[in-house]
C-alpha cells in the first residue's frame, strides 16, 4: 500500500515539472524595478528573434537566480559586475567583464558586454534631513550614532553591504532595521527612517530629490549592468540579448525605471526603449486583465491542488501511524510540526539548491506539500485517538480483522476530524502559494509581489482579492463536501 502512494506523489510532481520543460527561453529577474525592466527588454529582443519567451518576474535575490541559471531553469537574467564578483565568485578580482567571463566559463555561464550604465549601491537621505544634520558623505554618518537606518535584507547580508561598510567607515549606528526596498522609500519619505540603501539608477532618487551620500572612502565596487546567460542557450537568442549591449546609459535607465514606476507597467517601459531606438513595439502583446487573472488563478489552483493531493495521500497514512502510542508517532508529529515552524520563504530557499527541484513550480509544490502535512497528520491522529474505548473494544471482540476495523469503523468515525485537517491545509496553502511567485512559480503571488515593488495597491489587490475569494470558496466547498463524506449517522442529532 505504501509504494503506490509514493509513486503517485512522484508522478504528480513529475507532471508539474514536465509542464515546464517545453522549448521556450525563460528569463529571470530580481525583485526590483530595474531588473524587471531589463528582463522585459531582453524578452522583447529575444522574441523578435523568433523565440517564445517567458519572463519569471521577481524571483528573489542573487543566489536564487544564480542557482536557477546554473540548473537551467532560466536561460538568462540581468546582473551587475560588482554583484557577480562579490556574491557569486566571492573573489577579489578586478571586475572587468573580461575577467568575469573567464571565471564564469567554468560554470557554463557567459556574460554580455556592459549594457552601458553603472548602478552602484548608495546610501540616500531626504534633503531636509541631510541638511538638518549636515551630512554629505558616508563618513559623516559616524558623527550621528542616533540615526535610524532601514536597509534591504540583501544589503544587510552582502559582502559589499552594511557590515563591511560599517567596518570600513567605523560607524557605530545600532538602530538598523531590515525593510523591503520599495516600502523603505515610503518609510524614508514619512520620516520613519533617516537613511536607506538605494541603487543609483533608482527613479525614486530624482523624483523625491533625495541626497546620495558620497562614498568618500570608495567602498562600493562598480556595478555595471550585464546579462548572464547559459553558454548552451540557442546562439540566436544570445545574439538577440547582445543587441542590448551599450544601449543604456544612466540617464536612459533612470528614465525607463521612472516610466515603469509611473505607469505601473514594465512592458510600457520596454515600449519606450524600443521606440527610442527606432523599433516600434509592434510585438508588444499586452495581456488583458481577465486573461492575466485567469492565468494566475489557474496556476494558483494547480499549485494548491497538487500539493494538497500529495499531502492527503501521504498525510493520512502518516496520521494513522501517528495515532498509535509510542516513539515513531512522536517522531512523525514532531517532524511535521518542525516543518511548520520554518518560515515559508526560508523553506523555499532551502529547497531550491536540492537537485531536481531548483527554481520551478515543482519546488513550490513540494514546499506547499510539506506545509500541508501537519494539519492532516495531526487531525487524522487526533480523530483516531479520540474514538471511545467501548467502540474499540466492540470492534475487537466482534472479531474484525485490524484492516477492516480501520477501514470500516475507525476511519469513518475519524472522518470529521480528518476533513477539518484537509480544510485547514487547503486554506493555509492558498495563502502560502502566493509566495511561490518569488521562485518564478507564478500564481496569484505574481501581481502581489510586482505590486509591492511598484508600491501599487491596485496591482497588489489584483492578486490579494482573488486569493482571499479562493480561500473563502474553499471553506464553502469543504462544508458541502463534509455533508457528502461524513457518514450520515454522525451528522444526526439525538431525537
Amino acid at each position: 500500500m505504501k509504494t503506490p502512494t509514493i509513486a503517485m506523489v512522484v508522478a504528480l510532481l513529475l507532471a508539474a515539472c514536465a509542464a515546464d520543460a517545453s522549448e521556450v527561453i525563460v528569463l529571470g529577474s530580481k525583485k526590483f524595478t530595474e531588473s524587471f525592466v531589463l528582463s522585459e527588454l531582453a524578452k522583447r529582443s529575444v522574441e523578435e528573434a523568433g523565440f517564445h519567451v517567458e519572463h519569471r518576474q521577481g524571483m528573489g535575490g542573487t543566489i536564487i537566480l544564480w542557482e536557477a541559471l546554473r540548473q537551467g531553469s532560466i536561460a538568462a537574467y540581468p546582473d551587475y559586475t560588482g554583484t557577480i564578483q562579490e556574491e557569486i565568485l566571492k573573489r577579489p578580482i578586478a571586475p572587468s567583464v573580461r575577467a568575469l567571463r573567464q571565471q564564469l566559463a567554468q560554470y557554463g555561464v557567459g556574460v554580455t558586454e556592459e549594457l552601458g550604465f553603472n548602478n552602484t549601491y548608495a546610501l540616500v537621505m531626504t534633503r531636509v534631513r541631510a541638511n538638518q544634520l549636515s551630512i554629505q558623505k558616508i563618513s559623516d554618518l559616524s558623527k550621528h550614532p542616533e540615526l535610524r537606518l532601514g536597509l534591504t535584507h540583501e544589503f544587510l547580508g552582502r559582502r559589499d553591504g552594511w557590515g563591511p561598510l560599517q567596518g570600513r567607515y567605523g560607524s557605530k549606528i545600532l538602530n538598523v532595521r531590515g525593510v523591503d526596498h520599495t516600502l523603505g522609500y515610503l518609510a524614508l519619505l514619512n520620516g520613519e527612517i533617516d537613511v536607506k540603501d538605494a541603487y543609483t539608477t533608482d527613479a525614486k532618487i530624482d523624483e523625491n530629490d533625495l541626497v546620495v551620500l558620497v562614498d568618500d572612502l570608495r567602498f562600493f565596487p562598480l556595478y555595471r549592468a550585464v546579462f548572464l546567460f547559459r553558454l548552451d542557450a540557442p546562439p540566436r537568442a544570445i545574439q538577440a540579448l547582445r543587441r542590448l549591449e551599450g544601449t543604456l546609459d544612466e540617464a536612459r535607465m533612470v528614465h525607463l525605471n521612472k516610466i515603469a514606476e509611473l505607469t505601473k507597467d514594465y512592458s510600457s517601459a520596454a515600449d519606450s526603449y524600443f521606440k527610442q531606438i527606432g523599433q516600434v513595439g509592434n510585438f508588444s502583446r499586452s495581456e488583458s486583465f481577465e486573461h492575466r487573472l485567469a492565468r494566475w488563478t489557474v496556476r494558483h489552483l494547480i499549485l494548491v491542488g497538487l500539493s494538497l493531493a500529495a499531502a492527503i495521500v501521504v498525510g493520512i497514512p502518516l496520521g494513522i501511524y501517528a495515532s498509535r502510542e509510542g516513539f515513531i508517532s512522536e517522531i512523525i508529529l514532531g517532524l511535521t510540526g518542525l516543518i511548520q515552524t520554518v518560515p515559508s520563504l526560508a523553506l523555499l530557499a532551502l529547497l531550491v539548491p536540492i537537485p531536481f527541484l531548483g527554481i520551478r513550480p515543482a519546488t513550490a509544490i513540494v514546499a506547499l506539500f510539506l506545509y500541508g502535512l501537519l494539519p492532516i497528520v495531526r487531525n487524522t491522529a487526533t480523530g483516531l485517538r479520540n474514538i471511545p474505548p467501548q467502540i474499540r473494544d466492540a470492534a475487537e471482540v466482534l472479531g474484525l480483522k485490524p484492516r477492516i476495523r480501520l477501514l470500516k469503523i475507525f476511519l469513518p468515525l475519524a472522518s470529521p476530524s480528518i476533513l477539518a485537517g484537509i480544510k485547514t491545509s487547503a486554506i493555509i496553502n492558498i495563502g502560502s502559494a502566493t509566495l511561490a511567485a518569488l521562485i518564478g512559480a507564478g500564481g496569484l503571488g505574481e501581481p502581489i509581489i510586482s505590486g509591492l515593488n511598484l508600491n501599487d495597491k491596485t496591482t497588489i489587490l489584483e492578486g490579494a482579492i482573488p486569493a482571499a475569494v479562493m480561500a473563502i470558496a474553499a471553506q464553502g466547498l469543504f462544508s458541502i463536501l463534509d455533508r457528502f463524506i461524513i457518514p450520515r449517522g454522525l451528522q444526526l442529532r439525538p431525537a
Partner: protein
Amino acid sequence: MIRFHNAGKSFGSTVALQPTDLQIPANKTTVLIGLSGSGKSTILRLISGLLEPTTGWIEINGKKLTRASLLEFRRRMGYVIQSGDLFPHLTARRNILLVAQELRLGIDEMTARVKELCALTRFPSTLLDRYPVELSGGEQRRVSLIRALMLKPDMLLLDEPMGALDPMVRAGLLGDLKSLFERLNTTVVMVTHDLVEAARLGDWVVLLNAGRIVQQGPFAEFSLCPAEPFVSEFFHAQMEVVQS
C-alpha cells in the same frame, strides 16, 4: 465450560484480579456481582481476550486461550456492554450484519436470522434502518444483543447491560433477558452490581470484593449461609437502598 487456572491481572502495582481458580458452567447463566473495582469486569475482559492475564491461564471448552487462537474464539463469543458500543456511523441493520457480511454469509440466511433475533429480543424490525443516535437506550441494548447473537455464539458476555437504562426500561429488558437466556440455552456470563438482576437471572452467582472471589453458588445460598461478614454487608446495603 470456562476455567480460570490461577489466572490474575495486575496493572503495575495495582491488582485488578488476584490469581483465581474459577469454573463457569456451560449452558447456564453465571452472574458476576460486586462493587466497582471488585474485579468482576476484569474477569469478563480476560475471557474476551481484551486483557491478557499476568498470572496463570484461561481455558475455554478444553482449549487454552492464546493470542493466536483469539480470533477463532471471538467468532464464537457475543459481547454486550453498558452503552456506546454500537458504531454510530452505521444503521442498526449494518451494525448487526457487519461481521456476517465480512464472512460472506448468504443473504437469505442473514435475513432470516435477523428476523428471528428481532422477535427474540422484542426489537421492532421497522427500526432496523435507524442510526444508533435515533434509538432509545433500551432499543440500543437490544440491537447490541442482536449483533452479539448474530453468529450463534457459544457464549454470551454481558458487562452491565442495563447499567445505563432508566428503571422502567430496565424492568422490561430484565424480563426479556430472562426468557431470552432460557430459550438460548447457551453459556452466559453477565457482570452487574445489582442484586435484583443477579437473583432473577443467575443460575450461578459469583460475588467478588477487592479482586478476590468471596463466595459462589446459587443465589439462595448467599443469605442462608454467608461465607464471611462482607457478604451480609453487601446484601444489606443493597436492600436498604431499595427500601429507602
